[in-house]
C-alpha cells in the first residue's frame, strides 16, 4: 500500500512521511487485531519490518484506513500533524477504555532543506519493529476488553489547518483515572514518533 523509499543514501521529507504513514497503517492494524476490535479471522498475514503482521482483509476497513493514512501522509509531508490517537471505546456505554497516543514531532526545517538526512532505512525499520513488537506485547498488562468495542482515530494538527471533508473536529477523549505506559519511539530524523498507551485504571490495589 505504501510505497517504500528505495533510496538507501538518506531520508527526504517525502520519504519520511511515507515511512511514518506506513508505520501507522501497520500499527493501527496491529492494535485492531491485538485488542480484538475486529474478529481475528478478518485479518491476513503480511510480512513487514521482518515481522509477520496482521492486516485487515475487511474491504471497508481497508478503505477507511487507507483514506486516513493518505490524509495523514499529506499532513506529515506538510509537517502540520502533531499527534495521532487511536481511541478504543465501548460500544454500549461509549466509555473510552484505551487510548493509544502517538506524538509526532516534525522537524519543520526539513521543509526547506533539499539534502536528505543521513539515516539508514534499516535502522529506522529496526526501531519501528521494536515499537510494533511492543504493541504486541501490551497484552501483558492491558485489561481485558469485556464488551464489544469500536475504535476512533483522532489526529491533532496545527490550528491553521482547514478541516477536510469527511473529517470533523473532536474532543481529546481522555480516560478519567488512567494508567499510562510509555512505549518506544522511533525517528526518521525528520519525524519522531513517541507512543503512549493509556488504559483505564479500574480496581487496582
Amino acid at each position, binding site marked *: 500500500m505504501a510505497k517504500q523509499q528505495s533510496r538507501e543514501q538518506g531520508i527526504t521529507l517525502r520519504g519520511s512521511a511515507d515511512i511514518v504513514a506506513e508505520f501507522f497503517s501497520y500499527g493501527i492494524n496491529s492494535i485492531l487485531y491485538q485488542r480484538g476490535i475486529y474478529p481475528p479471522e478478518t485479518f491476513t498475514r503480511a510480512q513487514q519490518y521482518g515481522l509477520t503482521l496482521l492486516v485487515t482483509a475487511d474491504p471497508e476497513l481497508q478503505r477507511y484506513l487507507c483514506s486516513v493514512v493518505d490524509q495523514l501522509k499529506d499532513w506529515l509531508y506538510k509537517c502540520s500533524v502533531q499527534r495521532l490517537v487511536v481511541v478504543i471505546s465501548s460500544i454500549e456505554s461509549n466509555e473510552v477504555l484505551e487510548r493509544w497516543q502517538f506524538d509526532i514531532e516534525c522537524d519543520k526545517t526539513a521543509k526547506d532543506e533539499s539534502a536528505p538526512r543521513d539515516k539508514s532505512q534499516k535502522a529506522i525499520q529496526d526501531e519501528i519493529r521494536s515499537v510494533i513488537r511492543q504493541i*504486541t506485547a501490551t497484552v501483558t498488562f492491558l485489561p481485558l476488553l469485556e464488551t464489544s468495542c469500536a475504535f476512533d482515530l483522532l489526529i491533532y494538527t496545527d490550528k491553521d489547518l482547514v478541516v477536510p471533508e469527511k473529517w470533523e473536529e473532536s474532543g481529546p477523549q481522555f480516560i478519567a483515572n488512567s494508567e499510562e505506559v510509555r512505549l518506544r519511539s522511533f525517528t526518521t530524523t525528520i519525524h519522531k514518533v513517541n507512543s503512549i498507551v493509556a488504559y483505564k485504571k479500574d480496581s487496582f490495589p
Partner: protein
Amino acid sequence: MWHDGNEWELSKENVQPLRQGRVMSTLQEALAQQDASSHTAIQQQKQEFESEIRFYSGDDPLDVWDRYIKWTEQTFPQGGKESNLSAVLERAVKALHEQHRYYQDLRYLSLWLKFGNCCSEPLDLYSYLHSQEIGTSLALFYVTWAEELEARGNYKKADLIFQEGIQRKADPLDKLQSHHRQFQARVSRHIIQGLEEESNDEEEFSLPGLAEPQRSSLADLKGKGKKTMKAPISRVGDALKGHSILNQSSQQMSNGPNFAVFDENTASASGTEFPVLTPQPWAALPAARAKENELRAGPWNSGRRPRSNMNCGAEVPCVLPAFTPYVEESAQQQVITPCKIEPSINFVLSVRKPGKEEDPLQRVQNHQQDTEDKKEVVMYCKEKVYAGVEEFSLEEIRAEIYRKKAKKRREEEFWAIAQKKEEMQKKIKELERMLRDTRDNQQQRTHEQVTLLFSFSGEGYLLSQRPTVPFSIFDESSASISQNVSCPLGLPQKSVHRPLAVRKPSESTTSKESTPPEACNELNGIEPLIEDAILTGSYKNKTLCANPEDTCDFVRAAHLASTPFHGVGLQRIQTPTDPESLLKKECPESKNMCLSQQIPACEGTYSEALCIKKLSPIMEASQEDACSSGSSVSSRSSISSVTQISTIKYLHIPEKLELIQSLPVEMASDPRDDSTNLLWTTEKCKKLLNPLPELLTTSPDFYLETGPMPLMELEKEIELGNEIYSIKREYWTNEDDKMFFAVLANSAQLGAKGFAIKVYFQPAPWDFYITLQLQERLNTDFDQSFSENCSCFLYQDGCVVLHRKINCYTLSDVIQSCKTIGEEVIMLVAYNLLDLVEKLHKAEIVHGHLRPEVLFLGDRLCGLFGNSEITNALKIVDFSHSLDLRLQPKVSLLSFPMGQTQHGQQILAKCDLPCHVDLISIADIVHLMMFGEHLHVYQENSLWKINQNLSKSVESDFWSKFFGKILNADGKSTALTLRELREEMSGMFDASFQERLHYSFYHLGEFALPLV
C-alpha cells in the same frame, strides 16, 4: 538495544493476563526482581498482609483478603506456585464462608470466580455457588457461568442460566440483559450457519472434501478442550467467540451432524427436556485438581459413555450437564475406599482419599463441613496460626500483639499528654486573666499590701484590705517555732526548712508588692515554657520556690499539683496540717510541746483561711512532702471555729502518733462513741445516736478484729477475714479514708471485677452503716446499684469495708479516657444517677458528695456493651459524706464538699434542703460528661442556668429542661423531681435509642481503661 524498564516486553509469555489489567510499575518491579535472589520486599509485604488478616479489627475482613489477592495477582505476573494464588483464594473463600453477609457481595463473588479458574471444573463451582446462594443476586455470576457453558457449547443450559439471572433480577440487570441479547444473537447466528452448512452439505455431499470435516472436528475438540484452549479464551473472550463462529463460517464444509442434532433438540425439547435450573444439593464430588504434567484419565478410558439425558451422540462430553464427570471419579474412588458415597454434601468427608490431592473446591466444602460439625475444641489460637496462607508461629502472634499494645500505649500517652497540655493552657489563661484582674485592683490600692501568691488564687481583693502584719507575724512565728522545737531535739535541718520554704513566698511577695506588674511580665515571659518543662519531668525533683523571687514556680506547682486541681473553682485549705504533721512525725516525744506551740500558728493560718477558700499551690506541694495524704476529697470547712478545726486537724495525723491528748473524747476506742468522728462536720458527730453499734454488730458481715489495722498500700497484699487480697489500684486517698481496688491474691486472673476496699483511719464504718440502713429502708429497692455484698472489719484504730463484685472502673475513668462520650451513654448514666439518688433520698439518706470517682461502673456499662437486660449502669459504695436525715435533719449546706465549690456556693446559698446537694452533684456529673468541665452557672430571672451552650447536643431540649429542673428544685421534694425527670427520660429509651446506645458503646469500647 533493550534497556531497562522494558522487561515486560521480553517476558510477555510469562505474564498472565488479568481481567482488570496490570499496574505497569508493579509489573516492572516484579519482572525485574525475577532473577534477583532475594524477594525481601515482596516477602515483607506478604507478611504484612498475613498479619493484617490475623489481627484485623475492623468490620470488613473481606477487604483485607481482596487487597491481598489483588496484590498477589499484580505481584506475581507469572502466577505459578510461588504466587500461591490458588491457596490464597482457597483460604479466603474458606475464611469468609461463615460470613453470610458477604454472600451477595461482588467482591466475595469475584474471589469465588477467580478461585473457579483454579479449579478443574469451574462449572461445578458455579453450581456449588448456586446451591449456596453465593452471588446469586449478581449479574456477574450468571454471565460468567453462562459464558463458560457457552464456551463448551451447552447453549441450552447457558440460556437457562441467563434466564434465571434475569428472573432473579440480578444486579445490574441491564448488563445481564445485554449479555443475554448478545448471547442469543451469537447462538442464532450459529444456528443459521448450521442450517446453511447443512444445506450446503447436502448439496455438496458428493464432494470429496472430506479433509475439511476432519479438520473441523479436530478444531472443535480443541476449542472445547479443557485447558489447552483456555488461554485465548480468557485473553480476548469476545474475539474468541467471534473467532469460533467465523471459523465455522470459513469452514463451509464442516460436518453437519453437529448442528443438525442440536437443531432438533432445540426444536423438540425447548425447555421441556431440560429440568428447570433449581438449586439442588451439591450432589457429587468434583474432579481432582487439574495440574500440569499430570496424567489425566480421559473420559473414554472408563469404557463408559457419559450419561446424558439428551440424545445427541455427536455432542462431546463437555456439553453434558455439570455433574456427570464425577461418575467416573467416584467409580475410581470406590476401588480405593469401599465407603459408599452419599449423595448429600454432608458426607463428603467420608470420601477423602489419602495421598491424592483434592480439588480446592472440594477442600472448601470439606472445610465447611468440618466447621459445621466440629467437636473438638482447639485450646490454642488456631485461627490465628492458620488464618492466612502461611503459618504463623505463636511467637510471631505474640510479638504482633505486643507491638499493637505498645503502639496503643504510645498513642494513649501521646493523647494524654496533648490533653494535659490543653488543660494546662486553659488554666494558664484563666490564671492570667485573674492576674490581670487583680492587678487592676492592686493598682487601685497601691498603698495596701498584697501578696502575689494570694492574688493568684483570686482572693487578692479580700486580702489586700488587710494589713500585712498577720503575714509577717505568721512567717516569723512558724519559722521561729519550728526552730525552737527542732534545735533542742536535733531535728534535721531539712525539716526545719520545709515549712519555711512553704511560707516563704509570702515573704517574697511582700517584697514584690511594690512592683506587681513586673512580676506579671516575668510570669508571662516564662509561661510558654511551663507545660513542656512539666511534661518532660524536669521539674520533678526541683525544690519548689528555691528562688524566693521566682513566683513562676508557683504557677508551675499549681499544675504539678495532683489530680484534684479543678481550676479555681474547687479549693481546699489543708496547708496547716502539713507543718504540724511533719513536726509531729519527726518529734513524737515532744508532742505536747509541739502542740501547744502549734496552736497559735494554727490560729494564724486559720484566720487566714477564713478569708481564703482557694487552694494555694504551695500548700499542696508541701503536702506531698509531708506524706500525710495528698488528696482530694474532703475540704475542711473554714466556717467552723478555729478550735474545732484544730481538733479535726489532728485526727488526720497518723495513728501511731497517738495524739490522744489533743483529741476530744470521741477518740476513745469504742466505736459507739466515735463512729461519728469520721464525719467531717462536728454537727453530725453530735447528732449521731447510740443504736448504731447494735445494728452494726448484729450484722453477719461485721467482724471485730483485735489489733491495729494492717497497713494498706498500693501493690501490697493484705489479709481480710480469711482471704488475702492484693491491692491493685488506688482510687483516692485522703486523711479520712482511702479507696482501693483489690483482687484475690491467689487468683492470677486480672478480671475487671474485684473488690473495692474502703479504709477508714477511724474505727467508724460509716459506709457500712449507711449501706445497712439502705438495705433496711429500701427493702426490695435495694439492688445492684448499691453494694449488696460487703463486709466490715473493725480494728482498734480504723476499719475496712470490703465490697465484693465491683468493677474496677469508675465513671471518672470513662470521663478521663474518652474525649467525647456518646450522648446515649450520658443519657444512660444520667438516668441511672437519677434512679440511684431517688432511692437514696427515699431512704432519707443524702449522699453529700457524689462525684465521678465514687460511681463505679455497673455491669451495663462495664461489661460493655453487654445486654440491655442488666439495667444498672452505676454502683455506689462510698458514703463518706453521707447524711442520715433521720439522725441529722438539719445541717449547714455549705458544710458539704459541694458547698466549697463555686457553683455549689452560688446555688446552695439560696436553698436549705440537704437533698439539693445531691441534685447539684448530678448536674455537675452530667455536665462534666457532656462538656468535660465542671458546672458553671448563672442566674437569670431567679432561675439557675448553665453557662455552656446545650444547643450542640442532639437532645438539647431535653438537656436544658434537665438542667433547669435539677438546678432549680427549690422547695420541692427531691425524690419527686428526680422521678419526674426519670420518667421523662424513660420515654426516650425506645428501640432506636438502644441501637444508638450500642453504637455509642461501640465507640466507648475503643477507649482503653487503665488495667489494674
